[in-house]
């Protein structure tokens, strides 16, 4: 790997990370909740770019499919099914703005202090070729029980969502 390639990889990672952070901040601070959902979709696109940097190609695609394709669409459905989404006069934050900002800043400083203070192993293991193959084998051999439990959990979530979302008629 020559110098130009190394430099461009580092710059590209920092750019994508910056995009992800900016869209995450937009998703939690914008007044219009619809714009927040769109910023969330953009943040997940940037995050899947970071996954590609980590050679996790399967997870990058699944991230876009599940988060952008399903969860954000579900949230947009919930937003348009409730009323008064775009009014600027509705207060979107509670009274805890300044204390929670201080708490999160302290938490972030603590995280960064710990991450900076830890000595990480500098040697990087070789890239796994074909992550889809390995993940599929792992899911159906080592993690088979968790896989089955996850399918039951999804079934329960499906039935629960249908039951909760149904209009209950009073007799």
């Amino acid at each position, binding site marked *: 790997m020559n110098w130009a390639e190394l430099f461009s*990889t580092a710059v590209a990672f920092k750019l994508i990370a910056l995009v*992800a952070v900016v869209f995450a901040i937009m*998703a*939690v601070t914008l007044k219009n909740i619809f714009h927040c959902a769109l910023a969330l979709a953009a943040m997940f696109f940037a995050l899947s770019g*970071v*996954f590609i940097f980590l050679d996790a190609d399967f997870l990058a695609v699944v991230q876009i499919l*599940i988060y952008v394709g399903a969860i954000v669409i579900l949230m947009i459905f919930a937003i348009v099914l409730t009323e008064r989404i775009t009014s600027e006069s509705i207060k979107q934050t*509670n009274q805890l703005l300044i204390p929670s900002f201080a708490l999160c800043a302290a938490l972030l400083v603590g995280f960064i202090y710990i991450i900076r203070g830890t000595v990480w192993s500098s040697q990087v293991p070789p890239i796994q070729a074909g992550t889809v193959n390995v*993940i599929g084998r792992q899911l159906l051999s080592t993690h088979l029980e968790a896989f089955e439990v*996850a399918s039951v959990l999804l079934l329960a979530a499906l039935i629960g969502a249908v039951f909760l979302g149904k209009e209950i008629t009073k007799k």
Partner: protein
Amino acid sequence: MTPLSHYLILGAILFAIGIFGVLTRRNAIGILISIEIMLGAVNLNLVAFSRFVETSSLNGQVFAVFVMTVAAGEAAVGLALILALYRSVRAVFADRFNILKW
């Protein structure tokens, strides 16, 4: 190759942003959005450790797949709950959801 600490710091920043959103949002859908940001940050950490610590079994990526599964179920049930609450309270704001009080 970008060092591991950069990925971890990005994950920490996203997690802190998510906590800030959960603490400050009044809109319940906004709280769910912030929770999704936090789950994404956790996924980033898992995938980063999977890449930098041990790549032969990809356990971190399998974990991330499970996190995504649970996140999808959580979003579906959470949004259905918000819609059910909206039908009875006519609001989506978390400080209006006080119907369990007497």
